[in-house]
């Protein structure tokens, strides 16, 4: 494996983290969808590159799924849902964007720190990739918890998934990657369907506490 191919893989992985930060920064709904599409494109590029350098043709399938489903179908579907359900176009965040970004930087640092002690045996490529994908996962989680809005939470979840695919493809010769990515796509699809079917607008966050008390039992 030559240096160049390593660097390219590296670049894609780093790019993904960057796009994750963009997701975190974005506070308008449609902008978010576009950036998520970009996120998916970067992932599929990265996967394709891995397929190329690992000589693993089945990974192309994964790349294709990522591209078709997440870069095209889902953003479009979400776009329509937003329009159909009349969801607010701006995203309510918890804490300021700046604070979130700061936390994000902390998370990236953390994922690098955690990955550092792993022996070089595993290969630099893998180690760096793992650090980046961990960062993407953590940023996705951060997004899920720092947004009050269902759509952006779904997008956070999907970015987690992209991070996982990055990790899975980076692990050389890992079997079942395709199956796993398919399984994940089903999950994501269900999520989207769930939002649509259950008319979940803000259910992530706004819950009628009194309603809950009735069946959940608060104070005696």
């Amino acid at each position, binding site marked *: 494996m030559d240096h160049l191919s390593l660097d390219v893989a590296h670049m894609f992985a780093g790019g993904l983290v960057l796009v994750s930060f963009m997701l975190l920064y974005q506070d308008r709904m449609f902008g978010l969808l576009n950036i998520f599409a970009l996120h998916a494109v970067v992932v599929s590029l990265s996967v394709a590159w891995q397929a190329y350098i690992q000589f693993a043709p089945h990974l192309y399938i994964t790349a294709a799924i990522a591209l078709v489903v997440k870069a095209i179908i889902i953003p479009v579907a979400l776009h329509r849902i937003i329009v159909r359900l009349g969801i607010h176009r701006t995203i309510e965040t918890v804490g300021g964007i700046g604070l979130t970004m700061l936390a994000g930087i902390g998370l990236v640092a953390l994922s690098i720190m*955690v*990955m550092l*002690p*792993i*022996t070089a*045996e*595993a290969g630099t490529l*893998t180690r760096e990739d*793992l650090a980046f*994908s*961990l960062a993407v*996962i953590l940023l996705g*989680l951060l997004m*899920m918890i720092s947004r009050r809005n269902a759509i952006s*939470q779904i997008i956070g*979840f999907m970015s*987690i*998934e992209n*991070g*996982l695919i990055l*990790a*899975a493809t980076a*692990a*050389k*010769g*890992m*079997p*079942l990657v395709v*199956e*796993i990515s398919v*399984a994940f796509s*089903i*999950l994501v699809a*269900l*999520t989207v369907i*769930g939002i649509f079917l*259950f008319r*979940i607008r803000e*259910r*992530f966050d706004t*819950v009628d506490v009194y*309603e809950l008390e009735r*069946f*959940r*039992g*608060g*104070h*005696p």
Partner: protein
Amino acid sequence: MIETGPLLVMAILFVPLGSAALLALFPDGRLTGQLNTLASFFTLLASASLFRIRPDPSQFLIVDDVNIVFIVLNTFVAFTTSVFSASYIAHEVETGRLTPTYLRFYHAMYQTLMFAMNLALLANNVGLMWVAVELATLTTVLMVGLYRTPAALEAAWKYFILGSVGIALALFGTIMVYLAASAVVGEGLNAMAWNVLVRHADAFDPHLLNLAFVFLLLGYGTKVGLVPLHAWLPDAHAEGPTPISAVLSGLLLNVALFAVLRFKMVMSANSGALAPGPLMVTLGLLSVLYAAFMLYRCHDIKRMFAYSSIEHMGIITFAFGMGGALANFAGLLHMTYHSLTKSAIFFSVGHIAQVKGTQNMAEIRGLTVSHPLLGWGLVLGAMAIVGLPPMGIFMTEFLIITSTFARQPVLAVALVIGLLVALGALLLRLNGLAFGAPHGKEAPSQASFVPMFAHLTLVLAAGIYLPPALVNWFQHVARLLG
């Protein structure tokens, strides 16, 4: 000649899958219940015969000492639950809470769930196991939301989101385990085969394993319902159909814990890795204490027993975290007893909720007077679950506490406090439910008591006498767990 071993394994997997397809298409609502039972029975037969014939492990599937009893337990409880479910669901259709279409859907999902859980238990490939657990999660999400009430949808959605995040974390952990393994045993399926992993675990990169275990514990731990990852569990139990609550508590939590255990074995086989014990002990203790206090603030009967499940999962995790032959043995035994007892409790709770028309405990009184069998069944079950003798859980709690106290007195005392607080809460509620002057509807229940009392009898008998073969098996696995 075809070997019977692999055939049996296939039967365990494909009888449920096949019947799921069949049930989805089957038009007659009344027969589906029986068909469901029948399918579960055949699966049980197939799994029971695994005791006699054990197939060699393949790269994807394995039957070994660790999983065999779980498979049998799983199929057994699945069978008894299907018997209970038949009478329960019939009543639901009668009262119009479920339409025939949903009935078909329900039964198909039931068998799919069985398939997924059996697959998760049988899987030798850690990736396959992950897929199976995810499938199980998805099916139960659909089942929890079956009634389409706002509360049920809310519960299903919460379960779905939290479960998905957990699943994602578990996947990351699995990938890292693969990475650690592939450096040693080479790339490909071998690096995911569980039996290979355990054999070579000592050579793995310990740091990678540590990181992997954190993710796996949190990921599968979400499914186990460990505090603070538990939030989905009470809602899901309370809002779904009761047979599903029984399966969730009795089986799915076990399956998830089983996944954690498999990885714990890998961890403990590696001398450089961090001991998984303290982590599990902390989470376990946290669960026990939290759930114990929460029991006081439940109004919904199913919700209360859901918290009790959290508590027991905490105890089991605690036991495995403590490790050692005694504690592991007790943990395994506790898993078994908890499955049997908790599902028996949900059987009785299901019928109680049906005859009383409510799950609110304030509106249920004096069950031992109005419905003696149901009431005493509940009393027995509750006694068993809080660990009163002669039921089996007393034995396991005895072993866990005594073996812990000699090593870590503070932890044992904390556990004891948790147990005591939980006992106080459950007994307080039980007092109101089972005793006093009866209150509310007094219609006779058309229940099938056989599953409930079968489970309770088993737990009772096991508390007094355990067959040596079973003991040997448990002890063997306990040693494997380290």
